[in-house]
């Protein structure tokens, strides 16, 4: 798409239609920034504007998805930088809904702690991160992956430190920004190697070059570097140190957002890379090798997250480690994408993300209530809470059990679908399945710990916890939505899983054509790599 092309303008407009949700988000960001000029110090207006913008973006995403806007033009837009396909649309829809719920949560919890004049900043950063995550789900070449990851991360750094006077928050955000920038630098270095070997930034071309040249050592170095960058976003194990610290220090609504949205966006990105490799690369050995590497990453992440979670006493840190292990399960799912029918796994991942979103939102919301009203996040302080506020306690138990994977709740169905995908992937899949199930068994121990204290333990008479005040209706609405979604996805998953199944489709750019192209050019002679400066 060069400017000299007479078709560039119509092409541009047609493409632009498909990225309208992102454009709407950007416009909303600007609006949120402009609003204070009309009414200074007002919080409701920016909240309203951002909710409206998210809603519009959501509707537009659905519109694109349902083909109302443009029936047959979903696909790769802007010379293949972005892929607008059912998979990314479904994820974006979930993300927008989630961002809206987060804004509601923030309005109820964080707003009083935030200076009224800072509200637009918060919303703008949140929308900016959402924008970046939307792009992560669609990113189809290295430069888009890189820039989308950054536009999701950089606002997150600021969000994590949003409570500026809070020492824990600043410390969390310091760790976050240091780990983040180091891992993104490593990712970029890896990408430079990948570019060096394959000569393209396009994922499908890179996969094609693996076909052509085999798995060269430099490509291995490059892929390792790139996956290290992904591992940071996923909080996979060697890169997970930031996660609990950031989660503990950041405001709860930011924690919820980071634990769910940024991880699931990274999962989508990883899934797209893996899917490209899986569709185009022919060599079985290479595929198994990559799957083995990513699968090991997932297995180690899940196991480590669970093991460390076993001795956590702080509810938020416990949830942080639990989210690390859930990321591990999703990475395992991505690993076997290379080996089995991708639709099965992609829909399982989408379903898992959907369920995970509501489980974590619910659990973190209750953690926030406890933190605010009881003034403690120490689990052992919750002794006898079942008597004092039975509904909240029961809801927390429900969320915990769903995170664990109790049948009848959504978490189980997510794991079942993932397991169904894993078991189709031969020996590697079976081993990963074993890891998944063993981890599930271990995780019971710490997921039951809050339940144990709330239900069984006798409260310490020395410590008098304050009584929990009645919650606001909007908060009950969030909790009710989460609980109902979990029951719905757990008991009647048919509708949701069908939607996920319909959306578990990803468009891989011109895979077949690429393979044909490669076979034509296999006879090219290696170019002399040392030249004079001017040829």
């Amino acid at each position, binding site marked *: 798409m060069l400017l000299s092309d007479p078709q560039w303008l119509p092409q541009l407009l047609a493409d632009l239609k498909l990225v309208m949700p992102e454009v709407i988000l950007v416009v909303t960001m600007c609006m949120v920034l402009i609003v204070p000029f009309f009414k200074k110090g007002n919080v409701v207006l920016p909240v309203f504007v951002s909710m409206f913008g998210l809603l519009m973006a959501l509707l537009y995403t659905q519109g694109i998805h349902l083909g109302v806007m443009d029936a047959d033009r979903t696909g790769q837009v802007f010379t293949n930088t972005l892929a607008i396909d059912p998979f990314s649309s479904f994820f974006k829809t979930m993300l927008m809904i989630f961002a809206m719920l987060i804004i509601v949560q923030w309005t109820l919890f964080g707003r009083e702690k935030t200076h009224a004049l800072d509200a637009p900043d918060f919303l703008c950063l949140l929308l900016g991160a959402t924008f970046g995550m939307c792009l992560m789900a669609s990113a189809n070449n290295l430069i888009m992956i890189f820039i989308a990851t950054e536009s999701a991360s950089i606002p997150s750094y600021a969000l994590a430190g949003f409570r500026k006077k809070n020492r824990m928050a600043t410390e969390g955000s310091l760790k976050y920004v240091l780990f983040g920038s180091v891992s993104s630098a490593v990712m970029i270095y890896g990408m430079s190697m990948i570019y060096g070997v394959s000569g393209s930034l396009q994922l499908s071309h890179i996969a094609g070059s693996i076909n052509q040249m085999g798995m060269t050592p430099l490509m291995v170095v490059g892929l390792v570097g790139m996956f290290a960058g992904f591992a940071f976003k996923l909080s996979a194990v060697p890169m997970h140190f930031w996660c609990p610290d950031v989660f503990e220090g950041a405001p709860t609504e930011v924690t919820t957002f980071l634990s769910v949205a940024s991880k699931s966006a990274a999962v989508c990105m990883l899934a797209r890379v893996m899917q490209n490799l899986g569709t185009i690369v022919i060599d079985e050995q290479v595929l198994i090798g990559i799957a083995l590497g990513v699968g090991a990453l997932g297995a180690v992440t899940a196991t480590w997250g669970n093991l460390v979670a076993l001795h956590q006493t702080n509810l938020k840190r416990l949830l942080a480690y639990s989210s690390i292990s859930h990321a591990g399960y999703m990475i395992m799912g991505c690993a076997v994408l290379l080996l089995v029918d991708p639709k099965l796994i992609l829909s399982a991942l989408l379903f898992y993300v959907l369920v995970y979103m509501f489980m974590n939102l619910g659990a973190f919301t209750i953690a926030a209530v406890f933190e605010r009203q009881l003034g403690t996040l120490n689990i052992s302080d919750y002794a006898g809470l079942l008597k004092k506020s039975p509904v909240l306690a029961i809801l927390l138990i429900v969320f915990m059990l769903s995170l664990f994977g109790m049948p009848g709740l959504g978490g189980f169905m997510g794991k079942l679908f993932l397991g169904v995908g894993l078991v189709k992937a031969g020996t590697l899949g079976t081993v990963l399945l074993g890891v998944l199930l063993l981890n599930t068994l271990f995780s019971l121990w710490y997921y039951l710990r809050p339940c144990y204290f709330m239900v069984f333990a006798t409260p310490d008479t020395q410590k008098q916890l304050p009584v929990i005040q009645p919650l606001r209706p909007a908060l009950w609405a969030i909790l009710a939505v989460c609980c109902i979604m979990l029951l719905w996805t757990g008991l009647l998953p048919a509708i949701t899983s*069908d939607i996920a199944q319909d959306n578990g489709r990803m468009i891989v750019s011109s895979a077949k054509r690429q393979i044909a192209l490669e076979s034509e050019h296999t006879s090219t002679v290696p170019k002399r790599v040392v030249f004079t400066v001017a040829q």
Partner: protein
Amino acid sequence: MYESLLNWLIFTPCIGAVACLLLPADKARNIALGTSIITLLMTIVLALEFQIGHSGPQFVTTLQWIPAINVQYKVGLDGLSLPLIVLTSALSVLVIGAGWKIEKSPNIFMALYLLLLSGMYGVFVSLDLVLFYVFFEISLLPMYFLIGVWGGPRKEYAAIKFFLYTLAGSICLLITMLGIYNVTSSADFVAGNTWDMMALQTPAIQALFSPEGEYWNFARWAFWLTFIAFAIKIPVAPFHTWLPDAHVEAPTPISMILAGVLLKMGGYALMRITYPLFPDAASLYWECVACIAVFGILYGALCAMAQTDWKKLVAYSSVSHMGYVTLGIAVLTRTGFDGAYYQMIGHGITSAMMFFLVGVVYERAHHREINNFGGLWLAWPKYGGWSMLGFFAGMGLPGLCGFIGEVMVLLGTFQAAQRVEDPTFVYIIGSLAAFGVVLTAGYILWMFQRIYMGKTRPEYDHFEKPTGREYAIMVTLGVAALIFGIAPILVFSYTNATFNNLMSVIGLAGLTN
């Protein structure tokens, strides 16, 4: 007209549970009792409408549950499930009677109990593996809270141990289920995957499960996985350690339902899933399973003999008695299967009664140390009489319900000699199992002597006499023990056709009968 009754049977307790939570706490007992009586009536209607001589499931409801992976909501009642459903319904009423005096949040207790009831009904009637698994796990959770909140001093430990053990078992089952999915959705099976237990017994799928040539084929490792899953529930000896803890700490009504019904889920599942689905592996490894079973019988009996805690003794007697169930199934003879099934029903009645008898005394004495009792008969002669009936039924006295099951299992074991080349092994197994009967008589009589015989103790005068409610429960269970000891036809008329079918599926019917 009665087609949908089975669904109502499963979900009525759920409705009752919600009602218990929403309505005032002091109404909870009445609601729970009402709910369980309604389910009992439903069960009676089902039993009357049940067509005897029909081998397949009846009152079947099939709905698509998760079309993406072809999971169905499929429930039905056949000869294998009906007697256990009746047992569950009948016991559920008695258990609520036994738990009438629960003081600590009775509404939550009853709600959890009713949820448990739903889970148990679901396990016994579901014909789809995923559905079965869901009910199997759902029955775990209320049990965890029931033991953990209303239990004895070490309740938390017992509850988490129970949960972890059984969950480990369920995970074995889950692995098998996913394996079944893998096999049935493979390229060389065009019909698509299925989790339907009936469809999985068809020869086409059986051929996929155990292809020729490969030693550790799917059927063989799946057999062991499912066996472990259900062996933990039964419990078979090496996997039994959760049971004494759970029983000792659980309150009396929960012990009753745990021993009376929950353990039967394991035996039922062996007959419903493990053996019909993997018959080849079952006949290959039958000696191994039989050895485990006999070890369970003897180990349970010896442990029971060594106990000084009364309730723990009864708990170990459960391990021993359920060993006969495993043995009867393991030897793969028709008589053995019949015996195992009858042993489950008989043990359901006697173990509930034994735990109740212990509970009545414990409520008053607040300890269970056998050596600190004695002469109870003289203090409460009427109670002593019913106790004798209950414990002797547990011991397997002829004419009472424990006898028939044990004898048929032993007969079935010796019958297995006909189909093996060298019957020595069968004789050894059979003799050891028969020796288990002697041990059982030993520990029960010795316990009986230490508690009921001898001089009465002065502290008994302060004890409140057993109430009419308690006598009613004892009498009901005692009469049931007598009736089922005299008329096994009550059970066998229902199970006969289904067992014929089961034996033909397992493929050994012709060999043994």
